[in-house]
């Protein structure tokens, strides 16, 4: 197993015209750990996710992903579908992006496109319905059913994803991401809009994904109870720069983090900014 961190950001900068959304950000996410990325609204967290998953081309910097076998990928150079196919990175969205018109099961089947594509030999074998293809399709269905059961949605398998309740859609999106067989799972506010019981179930699900499915997790979250409970490491951003990094306990007591979250008077803020610069 490679000893390099699964994900390393090196001086990532993203500019939109005159606005610097992310400024020379560097951090690492360790293998089979849960790394949380937190910060006040507008700190640039989702921009970082969008750079990792190819939605934005970063202005400068390198996003390096290293698989267990040592294979390395520079995410900012990959073509969109290779982010899942080669680098094995999956993500979910703050505003859920399921395929609303397809059933829950079909959503999970699309996510297994790559495995099925290999088995279908560029479509032809699939159309002929050869046994090897049927076996691949069956294992894809089994995998989808496993995840539907895991997130408690097996009874809704044939319902259109758009008709599921909000909390169910969130869990289905995580199940879909897991169906791609990711090495790194990026979750953008998975606990947003969930009640206390649902958040607790989510924490349990994420911990089990980390330990039982050998998947590293990068997490954006505002729900501090979730972050403090499950994260192995926390990276704090504000105004596009990293202001702290450490274990949940260290972060909780860090004055800069408290200042960023609770607000400071202008003098203190200036002092913090100067210290950063």
């Amino acid at each position, binding site marked *: 197993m490679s000893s390099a961190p699964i994900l390393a950001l090196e001086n990532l900068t993203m500019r939109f015209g005159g606005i610097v959304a992310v400024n020379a950000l560097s951090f690492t996410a360790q293998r089979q750990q849960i790394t949380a990325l937190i910060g006040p609204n507008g700190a640039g967290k989702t921009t970082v996710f969008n750079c990792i*998953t*190819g*939605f934005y081309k970063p202005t400068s910097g390198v996003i390096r992903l290293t698989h267990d076998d040592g294979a390395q990928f520079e995410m900012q150079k990959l073509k*969109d*579908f290779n*982010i*899942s*196919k080669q680098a094995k990175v*999956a*993500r979910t969205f703050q*505003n859920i*992006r399921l*395929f*609303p*018109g*397809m059933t829950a099961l*079909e959503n999970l*089947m*699309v*996510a297994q*496109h*790559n495995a*099925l*594509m290999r088995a*279908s030999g560029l*479509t032809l074998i*699939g*159309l002929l319905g050869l046994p090897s293809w049927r076996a691949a*399709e069956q294992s894809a269905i089994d995998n989808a059913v496993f995840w539907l059961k895991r997130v408690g949605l097996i009874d809704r398998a044939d319902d259109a994803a758009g008709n599921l309740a909000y909390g169910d859609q969130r869990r289905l999106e995580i199940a*879909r991401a897991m169906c*791609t067989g990711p090495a790194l799972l990026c979750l953008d506010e998975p606990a947003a809009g969930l009640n206390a019981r649902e958040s607790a179930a989510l924490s349990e699900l994420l911990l089990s994904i980390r330990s039982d499915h050998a998947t590293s997790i990068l997490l954006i979250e505002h729900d501090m109870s979730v972050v403090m409970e499950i994260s192995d490491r926390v990276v704090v951003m504000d105004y596009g720069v990293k202001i702290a990094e450490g274990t949940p306990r260290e972060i909780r007591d860090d004055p800069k983090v408290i200042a960023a979250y609770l607000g400071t008077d202008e003098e203190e803020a200036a002092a913090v900014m100067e210290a950063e610069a």
Partner: protein
Amino acid sequence: MDYFAQQLINGLVLGSIYGLIAIGYTMVYGIVGMINFAHGDVFMIGGFIALISFLVLVSVGLTAVPVILLIVLLVSMAITALYGWTIERIAYRPLRHSFRLAPMLSAIGMSFVLTNFSQVSQGARVKPVPPIITGGYTLHEGDGGFVVQLSNIQIVVVITTIVLLGLFTWLVSRTRLGRDMRACEQDQTMAALLGVDVDRTISMTFVIGAALAAVAGMMYLLYYGLVDFFMGFVAGIKAFTAAVLGGIGSLPGAMLGGLAIGLIETFWSAYFSVEYKDVAAFSILIVVLIFLPTGLLGRPEVEKV
């Protein structure tokens, strides 16, 4: 009554042909949100390829009609599909992220290119073929001497359409390619993020649409016994109308719209005037769009977030 029954048969046959073309319009619209104005000309190309391959097969001395038809069908589907793929590759893909009107203008240009290419390479005259499928059944002989007939070619057209439609429905609803196509239709970025090669899926959509248009072209050739370089224009506009009438983006809608246009046109010609049949078809379109802006089976467009 006999006259009505005969017109119903004729209308259904014509409607099948329109429906096959309309599916190509509606599929492409569903997945890339553009009207492929060159699709009518792809239908025309399909007709020409069927004609050419038919003549080649006859000239090498093949005489078994079913064998000829099968080979002609496969050859015209394959070559026309290649046309569809090429058109998307050179005329639409480079413009996909350009402003919204760009691919549509490119499609109109492509339509002219194909029309003129056929005119130059095949000549401007109408190309007739002798009837290949002959015979038929007399269903009913009326008192006034009017005979309701169902010809073999009509049976072939309708059965081919039904079989292809069944195959196609299966493909879209049950296979991996169909799932990928529907996923791309709903959210291309998300589909790409799950590992779906969106470009390839869009290419396949054009390939399938062109193959269906080729079948329509061949059926047209068999049914009317002629092709010409300009036939794609009116047929294309009619099929587009059918797709809009059925609800653009909806596959059953395209078939339903095709049948509706075919029937309207036939009945109008039969009971009122042949000269104004196109006026009738398009007037109905206008009326439907006023009262049902999304067509018969279309869903209201949901703004993507």
